[in-house]
């Protein structure tokens, strides 16, 4: 019995057929789940966790993002332009991006201070979350198919003003 010591003859019983079925079931379920993520890697190349990240000097990255923000504030980012997005306590630089629908952009995202999270929340069920790390720039390729307003929120606690870190992506036709 489970709470009393037992001699080996008492507890060392062969597995029953039922129990063998249970073990098979558990492993089949786990294999199905594990197999799916591997299969997805080959099936849908356009919905993947970004795989490129490069080391980025915090100060250098911040000045790049500020320069980008000055150049393109209020303007549509032309095709083929690299976007620099910095998560800074407690704002996004730039805080608004205007992008063209149907165009693939490359976004570099990093932070000069602490950990942040990039969360893009949009109309039509759009949700996208990745970590933003100081010293490391993530390279993300995105293409917004439909025009609309998307929010950029910070989803990693970064301090008192964390909830106010809300930026915007406007996708125009």
């Amino acid at each position: 019995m489970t709470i009393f010591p037992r001699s080996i003859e008492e507890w060392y019983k062969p597995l029953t057929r039922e129990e063998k079925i249970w073990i098979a079931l558990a492993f089949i379920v786990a294999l199905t789940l594990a197999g799916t993520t591997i299969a997805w890697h080959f099936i849908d190349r356009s919905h993947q966790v970004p795989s490129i990240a490069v080391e980025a000097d915090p100060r250098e990255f911040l000045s790049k993002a500020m320069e980008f923000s000055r150049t393109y504030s209020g303007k549509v980012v032309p095709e083929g332009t690299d976007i620099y997005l910095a998560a800074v306590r407690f704002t996004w630089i730039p805080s608004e991006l205007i992008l063209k629908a149907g165009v693939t952009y490359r976004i570099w995202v990093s932070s000069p201070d602490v950990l942040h999270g990039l969360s893009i929340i949009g109309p039509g069920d759009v949700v996208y979350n990745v970590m933003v790390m100081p010293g490391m720039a993530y390279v993300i390729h995105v293409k917004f198919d439909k025009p609309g307003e998307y929010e950029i929120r910070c989803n990693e606690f970064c301090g008192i003003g964390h909830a106010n870190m809300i930026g915007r992506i406007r996708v125009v036709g």
Partner: protein
Amino acid sequence: MVLPGLFRTCPVTGLRVHLPTQRLIIANFVMALLSIVIGGIAAIFVGFSRGSTILVKDPEQYYIWLTAHGFNMLIFWILWFEVALVYFVSTVLLNTSIYSSRIGWLAFTLMLIGWLVVNVTVFTGNATVMFTAYPPMAAHPLFYLGYILFALGVFVALILFFLTLYKARVEGTYKGHLPLVTWGAAIAAIIGLTVVTHGAVALLTTFVWRLGLVESIDVMFYRWFFWGLGHNAQYVNVTAMVAVWYALLTLATGYTAARFVNERYARIAFALYTLFVVPGIGHHILVDPGFSVYLKQASGSVGSHFLSVPSMLHALALLGGLEATLRAAGHTGLFGWLAKIPWRNPGVAGLLLSMLLFGIGGVIAQPQTTLQPNLLFHNTMWVPAHFHLTVVGGTTLAFMALSYYVVPLLTLRRLISTRLATIQVYTAFIGILILAISMAILGWLGSPRRTLVLPELMKPEWWGPATLLVVGAAIWIASGALWVVLMLFTVLAGRRSTDPGELTSGLISAIIVKEGAKTSKMGSLVIVIIFLVVIMLALYFYSFLRLGFQPPFW
């Protein structure tokens, strides 16, 4: 009934209890109780602010409460309870005394100092960094020292547990092999050692960095080792919880159901946890820059999916054991036996509801632990939905249910009311379920965790689930308070008794089985298949479908 050598004999189980060990167990349990009270007060401020009612409007205060909530619940309540549990199963169940109560009090003191230092630094606003304490966000150096001292205390307690097992073996205080429950606790303690080693690496380096002895700290390095602590610790909880499940099945049915569990199978399932835990660390860094996609997939996805294997095996053993017992008592039909379960018994209800909540928590974890769909869930309220189901619905509820059995026996006082105990178990279930469902919906809609969303920052579609969250929080806080009240009244004002019948009245629903009756565990298999194969796979593939309809990103 004090026997020479400071032992007393339990009037109900006949087990010998060493009194100095008992004091140690009770001291650790009291600290667990105190921690859940502090964490519960924090839960009022967190729960009623994160929903549609904004109790705390000042973010600074909210994040202090949230840090205090995470620490006192996840780290302190659970670990103090687990230390009490490993002492109990290694002494009382093995008919022996603790290897050294001096070492036990040393562990207690270290944990107490760590507990005090962390709580003081957190509540004075010097450590508003959450229990994860990710650098380069920095807290007061003392905070890391407190964290380290607490972990060190746990480490000493685990070593003491192993020494006690060794002592019992050498002195031959018991015949045969470890009881199943002790075996489960030993597996939990082995995993606990991996927790402490990873935690030492993460926290010592951070401490050294905060003292200014090194220039900078590698964030990725910290995150991996911190989650070596954080992730592995969850499997200490899971393993201890499953051990408690077996204890509940045994105690609440007056030993009858335990005969229908194959212990060899259960022991194998316990041992499997040690294989699968450490490879699963990667599911916390799935969307971090810098780690290779192949490492993420191998550890975070594939490794983590195999982690659910032992839990599935235990669920089948426990539910199947209960089913076979009821069938042996003459109840038939594929599901007819379900109606014959003693649902009013707090132990049986606690066991089954804890299993159900834990199972739902496991189901919603599967899409989130998979590399690509993690993009949909990472750092949203989906995550607290998942762990409130597992560590609150599963572990906390199981521990609460067990306390209705063990506390009266340790204090020789009658439980103040078994009826209220049953009510507490059911209200906990309802509250946690509503709380978790509302969190899951918020997470599905993208609402970030650890964020005080003031009304002007709320997206319109978040209001509905945020209101539901307040309802769930209210029910569950009331239920948790009821548990604390029942414990306090039992310990302080319960009627003293040494009569076995009195001490366990209303707590045991013995199921009278007919010898040689036909049993089967078919109904349990069908239930688990519906749960896992149908519901879980549906949710899993639906989240891939949702991912496929997102704008392209890679």
